[in-house]
């Protein structure tokens, strides 16, 4: 049983190391930030996940495995969020993916205060809605 657990943890650790190094090489070699984000995601999910699972097999049941699970769960949440924030910030700063000739930046990626035209129209619409609701409320009250 010990041997099987050791073997499993070695397999997980070695494959996690493989994915980590592959992602690192990709971060160096990829031509664009958006493709580099993909490679960093590989090291975050596959590399970190496999290595932490391998350490779990080494630790056995207990508090250590619980801590490893906490780290793994937090990485599962934080890595996509930071990747998304980075991609959104890059897209809003005007940098386009290298394969896109005329990419229309989606409206959800625009940053309020940076692109005034979009923000102004949206604010005026919201303002009208608010005024209408207030008027309705007064009529009901009266």
């Amino acid at each position: 049983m010990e041997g099987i657990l050791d073997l499993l943890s070695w397999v997980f650790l070695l494959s996690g190391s493989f994915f980590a190094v592959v992602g690192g090489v990709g971060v160096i070699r990829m031509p664009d930030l958006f493709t580099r984000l993909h490679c960093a995601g590989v090291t975050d999910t596959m590399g970190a996940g496999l290595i932490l699972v391998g350490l779990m097999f080494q630790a056995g049941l207990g508090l250590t495995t619980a801590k490893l699970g906490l780290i793994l769960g937090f990485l599962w949440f934080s890595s996509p969020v930071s990747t998304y924030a980075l991609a959104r910030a890059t897209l809003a700063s005007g940098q386009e993916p290298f394969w896109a000739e005329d990419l229309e930046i989606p409206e959800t990626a625009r940053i309020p205060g940076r692109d005034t035209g979009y923000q102004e129209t949206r604010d005026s619409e919201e303002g009208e809605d608010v005024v209408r609701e207030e008027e309705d409320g007064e009529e009901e009250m009266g």
Partner: protein
Amino acid sequence: MFIAASFAILITMGLAMVRGLLGPTVYDRVLAMNMFGTKTVLIIAVLGFLVGRPDFLDLALLYALINFVGTLAVLKFFEYGDLGRRLDSMEGERR
């Protein structure tokens, strides 16, 4: 086996550092910083097992939290040029 894993993580950290030094835009450097921080979490965990003290995992967990918040803070700083202002007060303003 822990030594092999830690060497692989160290190589990845070195590659991320190279990307951070080469990075043409500031977002490449933020990406490299985020990746470096995640790999730091991993190497703290692996080194804790290597030297037989799994208590290092507390440090790894703390570092993961701080790394995430730090990445978002740096991104927000480079987007708005400030950390403590509301979005309403920045309307129509370009940096």
